[in-house]
């Protein structure tokens, strides 16, 4: 890998800016995403920062089964993001539709609409799982790591305060 590529990869892995978009979720995954960013779990120690606009974001965190109302908006937000961009489906609904599968107003998961880079299951996905998923996604950006993604650094178990 050339030096420039190595520097770009290093920068990309160390400062992934995320945008959170609720695509029809019940709020549970959304508050767990925020919980993952706050002191107990502290996703920010990996350089992750929550941004307000898709134009600043590298990673789109989606929660929810994608309602028909939100579908066009989701695509529009994705198109506004700069390349390279990654979509993370957080929660069982975002992965597969979950409990809302078959409801008349929902698609069954983010991957019906957008290419998904990482799936984080759980109802809701716990902050520890979100941490793990994001760290794995970042590790997979390095071509050297790609085939053995399961050896990606594990998020340490958050200690329970006494």
């Amino acid at each position, binding site marked *: 890998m050339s030096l420039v590529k190595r520097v770009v990869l290093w920068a990309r892995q160390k400062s992934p800016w995320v945008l*959170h*978009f*609720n*695509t*029809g*979720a*019940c*709020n*549970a*995954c*959304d*508050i*767990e995403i*925020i*919980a993952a960013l*706050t*002191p*107990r779990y502290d996703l920010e120690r990996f350089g992750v920062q929550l*941004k*307000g*606009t*898709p134009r600043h974001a590298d990673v789109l965190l989606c929660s*929810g*089964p994608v*309602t028909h*109302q*939100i579908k066009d*908006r989701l695509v529009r*937000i994705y198109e506004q993001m700069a390349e390279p961009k990654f979509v993370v489906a957080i929660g069982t609904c975002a992965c597969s539709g979950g*409990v*809302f599968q*078959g*409801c*008349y*107003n*929902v698609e069954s998961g983010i991957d019906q609409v957008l290419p998904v880079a990482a799936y984080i299951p759980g*109802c*809701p996905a*716990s902050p520890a799982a979100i941490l793990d998923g994001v760290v794995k996604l970042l590790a997979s950006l390095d071509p050297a790591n790609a085939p053995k993604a399961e050896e990606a650094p594990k998020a340490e178990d958050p200690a*329970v*305060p006494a």
Partner: protein
Amino acid sequence: MFEGESVQVPVGPQHPALKEPTSFMLTLQGEKILQIAVRLGYNHRGIEKACEERTYVQGIYLIERICGICSHSHATCFVQAVEEIVGIQAPPRAQYIRTIVAELERIHSHLLWLGVAGHEVGFDTLLMYSWRDREIVMDLLALLTGNRVNYGINTFGGVRRDISPEQKADIFTRLNALEERTKYYVSVATQETTLINRLRNVGVLSPADAVRMGAVGPTARASSVDRDIRRDDPYLAYGEIPFKVITADCNDVYGRTLVRVGELMESYKMIRHALEHLPDGPIAVKAPRKVPAGEALGRYEAPRGEDVHYVRGNGTEKPDRVKVRAPTLANVQAVAKMLEDRYLADLPIVVAAIDPCFSCTDRLTEVRRADGPSSVLHWEQLRQYGIEWHRRHGIDFSKLNNSFRCPEDH
């Protein structure tokens, strides 16, 4: 911009202020908001219809996922309504366990709100502090129910998990830690001049308007409307647990902060009282799979206000109709009133101050028959239709004041 010229600014559905998709169309004159139209429905998933296609037991878990913050409220409200139709009652121990989980949920919801409110006024330290402390109550909920959110503790006729003596001791220890921290938040809310000055006289809702707009929960109680279902129409174990209904007469966002912080302190006392007086006995009675024909209305004081579930059974395993009226739907009317003639910069905190939950609220749907004649009713016609329908059924609404108007259609 020239004097007198107004401009329309759309906000949302994706926007940095709130975590949920909702859209506001603001008509601004300079920095002043002239008119605000709220557009809901981005989170509408069709849960009520899905309930009709699932059995009652599946319905509990679906209803729980109406909202991830007040999931116990919705599940309990639904379960209570169904239990009323069936004619069974959960044993006292189950009622107490439900109450304890309900109050823990209120604590987690109010701490969450406190952080969000801090974030909206640029006080991110408060967000980080209160969310760190919120993890204590999340641990407690995980300990009691097995899940941090969407607890799945309710079932028809009782609860699914008991509280052991060790868990009880654990709850007491952690509640003490939480109470210490909450005292600190009370001092922040009553002494921190920057915060007080930012919140005073913002989002003013007079008591008369609160009643007229049908505001519920802390939004109403902060405007001196003394209204709390836990006391007015006791359910679960609330009839046996002493507590104060916290009200404030500030009518503004500051008052809503005081009410929520005050309710936190009350909740700690209520949980302690409930644990000390936890009755012995079974945690559930057997409930039939089929629910007889009949209808019932469940009422529940969720952290955001009164939650109402209407359930109609038809003698089968699946409900005939389920209708949910979430507290935010009642409060969202008041937001437009609070923001009239206010500054654009107040929008995030005023909207956040009702603790909106749009995944709860997005229940509306429009049905158009492809084969039949279609008609569009205007607000006045719809209102007239409603009045006449009720008059035919013996209720006269025509004497109510005529001031409820929806914004003009564009």
